[in-house]
C-alpha cells in the first residue's frame, strides 16, 4: 500500500540534496547554518518515524533556534538572461507541466479510492488526495525535465532557489500545528471558552449571535485555525445559548459560525500557510503584507456574517 511514508522519503531526499548543495554554495554567506536547517528538516522526514518523540521535539527547537538567531542565508542563483525568448519559444506549452499536478490530483482523488491489488488497497484510503498530489508533482517534474532537456541538478537548484526565498517560513505551518497540540494538552481552548462565557454578554438573541461570531473570529485568530475554535465556542455559546435558550437553527449557526472563524483566519500570522508563507513566496518586503491586504475584507465580512446569522438563525 502506498502511504504518506513514500512522500516523506521523497521530501527527505529533496531536503537532503538542498542541505548538501547549500554547504557547497559559497555564494551563501551563512551556508553552514542554512545547511544545518535543511539537514534537520531532511532528518525529520527520513527517520522521524523511528525517533523518540522528545528527539523530534528537539529537532523542531533546533530549527527554530537556527531561524530565530537569523542564521539562514540565501545563495546567488543567476537566472538565464534570455527568459523572454525562451517563453516565446515554448508559448502556451509552458502551461502543460504546470497543469499536470492539479489535474492528476483531481483524477487520483476521484479514481484511486477503492482500487485494490491482491485484496490490499493500492493507496492509503485516508491520504488519497495528498498521494495523488505527490504523484502529479513527480509526473509533472519528469515531463518538465524531458521537455526542457534539463538535468535533475538544475531542477534541484531551481527548487533550492525558491526554498531559500521561502526560508524558515516553510517550516512554520507544521510548527504551528505542533504548537496546537501542546495547546490542546494544556486545555488552552477550554480556558478561553470559559472566559468567553463568563465575560461576554449573552442575555439577548442579538448579543448571543454577536458574542458567537466575534468569539469565533477572535479565537480562530489566536489558534490560527477555525477547526480548533469551532468545538470550543460552539459548546460554550452556540449550542447552549443560540440553539438551546433562544431556539436558533443549528445548521445555520454551525455554517455561518465556521465562516466567521474563517474571517479570523484571514487576519492572523498564526495561519501561516495562508498568510505568512505567501508573503515569503512572493518576496514581499512586509511579512504581514498579505494580512494587511485581507484585513478590510475580513472585517466587513465578519460584520456581514453577524448580520446574516442574526437575520437567519432565529427564522428557520
Amino acid at each position, binding site marked *: 500500500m502506498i502511504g*504518506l511514508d513514500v512522500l516523506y522519503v*521523497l521530501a527527505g531526499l529533496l531536503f537532503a540534496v538542498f542541505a548538501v548543495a547549500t554547504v557547497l554554495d559559497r555564494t551563501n554567506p551563512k551556508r553552514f547554518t542554512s545547511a544545518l536547517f535543511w539537514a534537520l*528538516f531532511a532528518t*525529520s*522526514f527520513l527517520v522521524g518515524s523511528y525517533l523518540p*518523540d522528545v528527539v523530534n*521535539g528537539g529537532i*523542531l527547537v533546533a530549527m*527554530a533556534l537556527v531561524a*530565530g538567531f537569523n542564521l539562514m542565508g540565501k545563495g546567488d542563483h543567476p*537566472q538565464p538572461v534570455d527568459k*523572454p525568448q*525562451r*517563453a516565446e519559444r515554448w508559448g*502556451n506549452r*509552458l*502551461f502543460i*507541466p*504546470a497543469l499536470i*499536478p492539479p489535474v492528476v490530483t*483531481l483524477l487520483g482523488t476521484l479514481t484511486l479510492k477503492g482500487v485494490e491489488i491482491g485484496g490490499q488497497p493500492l493507496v492509503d484510503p485516508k491520504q488519497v488526495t*495528498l498521494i495523488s*498530489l505527490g504523484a502529479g*508533482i513527480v509526473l509533472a517534474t519528469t515531463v*518538465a525535465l524531458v521537455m*526542457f532537456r534539463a538535468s535533475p541538478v*538544475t531542477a534541484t537548484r*531551481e*527548487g533550492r532557489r*525558491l526554498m531559500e526565498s521561502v526560508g524558515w517560513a516553510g517550516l512554520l505551518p*507544521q510548527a504551528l*500545528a*505542533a*504548537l496546537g*497540540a501542546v495547546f490542546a*494538552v*494544556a486545555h488552552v481552548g477550554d*480556558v478561553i471558552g470559559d472566559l468567553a462565557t463568563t465575560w461576554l454578554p449573552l442575555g439577548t438573541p442579538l448579543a448571543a449571535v454577536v458574542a458567537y461570531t466575534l468569539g469565533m473570529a477572535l479565537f480562530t485568530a489566536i489558534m490560527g485555525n477555525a*477547526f480548533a475554535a*469551532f468545538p470550543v465556542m*460552539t459548546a460554550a455559546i452556540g449550542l447552549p445559548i443560540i440553539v438551546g435558550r433562544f431556539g436558533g437553527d443549528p445548521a445555520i449557526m*454551525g*455554517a455561518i459560525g*465556521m465562516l466567521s472563524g*474563517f474571517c479570523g483566519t*484571514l487576519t492572523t500570522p*498564526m495561519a501561516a500557510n495562508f498568510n505568512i*508563507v505567501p508573503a515569503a513566496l*512572493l518576496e*514581499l*518586503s512586509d*511579512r504581514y*503584507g*498579505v494580512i494587511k*491586504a*485581507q484585513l*478590510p475584507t475580513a472585517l466587513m*465580512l465578519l460584520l*456581514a*456574517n453577524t448580520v446574516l446569522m442574526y437575520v437567519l438563525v432565529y427564522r428557520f
Partner: protein
Amino acid sequence: MWVLLGVAVVVVGFAARLNPLLIVATAAVVTGIAGGLDVVATLGVLGKAFRDNRYISVVWLILPLIGLLEREGLQERAKALIGRLREATAGRLLVIYLLIRQLAAAVGLTSLGGHAQMVRPLIAPMAEAAAETRHGDLSQPVRDRIKAMAAATDNIGLFFGEDIFIAIASILLIKGFLEENGIIVEPLALSMWAIPTAIVAFVIHGARLLLLDRQLGKASGR
C-alpha cells in the same frame, strides 16, 4: 489560567515581529510548563505532533517544478498573454480569479489554486503585467500591494467557496460535532447556508479589487 501565558507569548511575539519559529518554540515550552508538564514531556508532545504533521510540509516537493518552469519563462509567458488584452486590469483579472477559485472550491476542486502552484508563477505576474500595461512602470510598494492582493484573493476564494461543497473537512467537522451533541443535520443543509456568505464575500472583495484599479490609476496619474 496560567496556560494563557503561552497565548500571551504568541501575541506579544508576533506584535514585536520576532521570528515566528522562535515564538512557536517558546510558546510551546511556556504553555507546557504552565500546564504542569516538564520540559521533556513538553518536547515529547511537541515532537509527536511535529512528526504527525509532516504531511503539511510535503507541498514543497513542487518547488523544483515551479523553479524549472520559471527558468523557462513561465512568468514572462503569463505576462505576455495578459499584456495583449487591452481590457485587462489587475483588479478585473483578480475578480475573475476570485470567481473561478470560489466556484472550483464549491464543487470540491480546492487543489486548483494555491500560492506555490498558481499565485507566484501565474496570477501575481499576470496582475502585475496588466497594471504595467495600463499604468506604466510600477514602484516596488505598488508591486507588493498587487502581489499581496493576488495572494489575498486566492485565500478568500478558497475559504468562502469550499464550504459550499458537502464533503469538505469543515462541513464534516460541523456535522460531526453537532451529532455528538445529539443534533442531526444534513451536510447539504450546512453547505446551503454557506452560500449567502459566499455571495457577500464575492461582492465585498470584488469591489475592493475594482477599487484597487482606481487607486493604481491615481497613483500613476493615468
